[in-house]
């Protein structure tokens, strides 16, 4: 089930995704495509299914119905002897290596220094040598402005610094796309800026990014496309100028008005 890869094909394609937890249907037929180098922001009220959608991209959740395609390859299911069967955990794992994720709570490994956090998975999963992993980690730490904190443990770093290390840890795996789930929501206000700055610089490098965020100002600055979700469905999507300045849908207008977004 692979098509020849070409650069015009979307990197991420979710097709008619339905997702239920028990009786609760949280995604009701969602389509999502993300092109190479594109920065897409998901916005919408709490409980609208943004996190669930994001977690479907790297198969931390599996769809109840629908298809997940990454880089021209179906991920959630594979063809075996002419039949389509759910992918095995091992196949999903190989796929997760290509889709980095950064969480709201950082989830750094507390018993490892920043440097160890960065080199652990590349060495095991990618088979990179210790010297090479260390050199690459140093470059990344320099990029996020934390080179001199390499030997510090997570609890010796501020929330903003921890989250920057978490971004670097995802980058160290050299993923094709990185998913960000409200990565500034757990931070003290004065630390939000430093993390957004790192994300903004990353967007400029041409990294493919999908962000769930409540930082509307930031979303409007870095996104190529903004998707507004409500009650498990995509209500409206378009360039930030459309979504933030001239939303077509009543529900989008209502949501943004409630957030007091004035630009």
């Amino acid at each position, binding site marked *: 089930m692979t098509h020849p890869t070409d650069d015009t094909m979307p990197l991420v394609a979710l097709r008619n995704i339905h997702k239920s937890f028990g009786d609760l249907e949280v995604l009701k037929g969602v389509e999502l495509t993300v092109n190479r180098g594109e920065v897409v922001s998901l916005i919408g009220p709490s409980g609208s299914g943004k996190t669930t959608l994001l977690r479907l991209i790297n198969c931390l959740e599996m769809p109840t119905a629908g298809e997940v395609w990454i880089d021209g390859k179906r991920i959630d299911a594979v063809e075996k002897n002419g039949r389509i069967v759910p992918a095995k955990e091992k196949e999903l794992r190989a796929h997760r290596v290509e889709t980095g994720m950064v969480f709201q709570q950082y989830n750094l490994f507390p*018993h490892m220094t920043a440097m160890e956090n960065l080199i652990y998975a590349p060495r095991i999963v990618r088979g990179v040598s210790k010297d090479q992993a260390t050199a690459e980690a140093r470059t990344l730490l320099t990029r996020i402005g934390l080179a001199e904190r390499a030997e510090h443990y997570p609890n010796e770093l501020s929330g903003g610094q921890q989250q920057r290390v978490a971004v670097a840890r995802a980058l160290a795996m050299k993923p094709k796309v990185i998913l960000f789930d409200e990565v500034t929501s757990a931070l003290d206000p004065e630390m939000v800026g430093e993390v957004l700055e790192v994300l903004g610089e990353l967007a400029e490098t041409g990294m493919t990014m999908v962000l769930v965020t409540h930082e509307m100002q930031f979303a409007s600055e870095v996104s190529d496309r903004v998707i507004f979700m409500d009650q498990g469905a995509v209500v409206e999507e378009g360039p930030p100028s459309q979504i933030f300045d001239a939303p077509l849908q009543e529900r989008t207008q209502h949501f943004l008005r409630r957030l007091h977004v004035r630009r």
Partner: protein
Amino acid sequence: MNSTLGDQMLSILSAATGTLQLVFWSLVISTIIGALLTPVAVRKNIWVRLPIMVYSWIGRALPPLTLLIGFYFGFIYAGIRLPGMTAAIIAFVFLNAAYTVEIFRAGYLAVPKGQFEGVKALGLPPWRAQLGIIAPQVLRVSTPALITNATTVLKDSALASVIGVMEMTAQTQRIVQSAPGHAIILYSYLAVLYIVLCSGLFILQHYLEKRLKVHRRPQALRRKP
């Protein structure tokens, strides 16, 4: 017995090797067994972990003395004549592994959910994730409780004299019975020996906590220094 006080103390000290042997092997084996049972004990499926829950429940419910006598005579009834020391180690392993698996289970459940998601999102193979990321965090929260347990085993080891194990309490009793003259001194000496051995465990705890960075709480939102 016409020995001097010095000789008597020396013979109690040599019986301490019996205590040490019993405690050391009981702790090492029960920690290994407890660790091996933990992955099953934390499974969601109740039927998979039920045998371990039942074992842990029984192991913690029975008094150590009952277990010592039970194992010793149980083996004799089964036609196996074990040295008292071996039977005592088996009894203490049975007892302490039941506590150990409970401690590890609680430690595992205390690992934040985000850690499991973190290793998953990085595509780490499960056993590398468990050993390299999860286990150190389990060990880290479990250390204080494990050491508390170890001190209990050390003190309960005196009970092993009922099945003929030569350890320091039994030896002291034997000397005092035949020559009561130095009873106070010898029992005080015995007390000091227990305190010294226990201190050894506390030093081990201190060392482990430093090595495992017990005080490094995950995700402490500390301000910029």
